[in-house]
């Protein structure tokens, strides 16, 4: 597997006027991974992605894609990646087939087998004008255009927002099936989304960005192991001493505790009060994202 990181961002700063959209962000995406980039609206996700693609120039810090500066080697970088934004636009007078030919003309390689497979799977009529496509069909067309050149890096910016659940599901299955079927060392995905649950199984590692800064970077399995929810019910009122819990919710004799890496110690304390019922579960990535708000105020 390739050892050089596919994306390397160091202390990236990008301002719009006096507003710091990205304010000292650093992250590294190793080759072959599916990397999630989570953040609330306005956290700086799209600005970061635009800096990767040289659609915006950083005010400070450095951005490297395949070890290259996208500002100096824009073509070399873009030849090896593909990008699906949340709002896709095509020339309205072109048909689906024209659009794919047009996109293919910019690419060194274009996999015709994948193209026809996906057109069939999405039931896209190649003779239809792009102006008459629905939002879902437009995203499907953009995805075909992104996967056929078999890029080493697939950048997805909120790709499934505004789509119906079936199209969303197909989108993700296509990323797994059609895109990931190549050499795993040359198939890196960088996906920004707040529909985290859908990408849960795909994501190896993620960064949560908040107000232009990194809030949390973790491996997905490690994160699910570290953030756990403990639910317990006691026979009567109990005085629990729960230092280090991320949050504690009480309702009568019931308590719900969010643990951040100290699950064993918190469980021992709960067990010492002899609960009638005790249940632990891991947080999903989406729940971790929501809990990260609490985390932020805890560390602030």
């Amino acid at each position, binding site marked *: 597997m390739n050892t050089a990181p596919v994306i390397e961002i160091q202390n990236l700063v990008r301002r719009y006027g006096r507003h710091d959209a990205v304010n000292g962000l650093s992250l590294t995406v190793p080759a*072959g991974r*599916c990397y999630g980039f989570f953040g609330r609206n306005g956290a700086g996700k799209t600005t970061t992605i635009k800096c990767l693609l040289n659609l915006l120039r950083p005010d400070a810090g450095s951005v490297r894609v395949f070890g290259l500066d996208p500002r100096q080697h824009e073509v070399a970088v873009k030849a090896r990646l593909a990008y699906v934004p949340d709002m896709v636009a095509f020339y309205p007078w072109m048909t689906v087939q024209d659009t794919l030919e047009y996109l293919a003309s910019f690419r060194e390689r274009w996999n015709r087998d994948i193209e026809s497979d996906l057109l069939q799977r999405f039931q896209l009529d190649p003779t239809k004008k792009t102006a008459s496509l629905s939002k879902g069909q437009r995203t499907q067309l953009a995805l075909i255009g992104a996967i056929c050149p078999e890029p080493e890096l697939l950048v997805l910016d909120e790709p499934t927002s505004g789509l119906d659940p079936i199209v969303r*599901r197909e989108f*993700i*299955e296509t990323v*797994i*099936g059609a895109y*990931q*079927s190549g050499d*795993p060392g040359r198939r890196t995905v960088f996906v920004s989304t707040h529909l985290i649950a*859908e990408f*849960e*199984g*795909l*994501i*190896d590692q993620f960064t949560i960005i908040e107000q232009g800064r990194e809030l949390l970077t973790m491996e997905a*399995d490690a994160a*699910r*192991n570290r953030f*756990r929810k403990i639910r317990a019910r006691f026979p009567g009122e109990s005085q629990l001493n729960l230092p280090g819990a991320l949050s504690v919710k009480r309702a009568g004799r019931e308590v719900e505790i969010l643990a951040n890496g100290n699950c064993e110690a918190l469980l021992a304390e709960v067990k010492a009060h002899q609960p009638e019922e005790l249940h*632990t*579960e*891991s*947080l*999903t*990535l989406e729940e971790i994202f929501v809990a990260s708000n609490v985390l932020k105020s805890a560390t602030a």
Partner: protein
Amino acid sequence: MLFQINFKSGTPVYLQLVEQVRHAAASGGLRAGEPLPSIRPLAEELRVNRNTVAKAYAELENQGVIETLPGKGCFLKELGSPLTKTARNDLLTQEIDRAVVAAHHLQISDADLLALVKKRLEAFDRKNQAATDSKDPA
């Protein structure tokens, strides 16, 4: 075979797949020589990273549970661990110790624990028997 993934269990996804194959193999849900689903369709269906499924299959192959025939796919192997009897006993001892510890904390008596183990062995035998019966209808 069908798989079920639970992101809230705290067990890494690839280990959940490993456990489910091992369980199916022990209870007759999967017979020696039967194929496992190919990596790509299974990853698509479960909507998990392709590498996760590949990692699970690699782990199962290391454990000697399945074998990969190039160009044909993955198949459940005949039982036949490459490990010595002592090594196998050691591995199982660790698992049993965990159950013994759990029984202690749940205040389950030794006799009840043994009875429960016997019951579970019978349950797996019944499942295996049912799987064999459906294979060769008498």
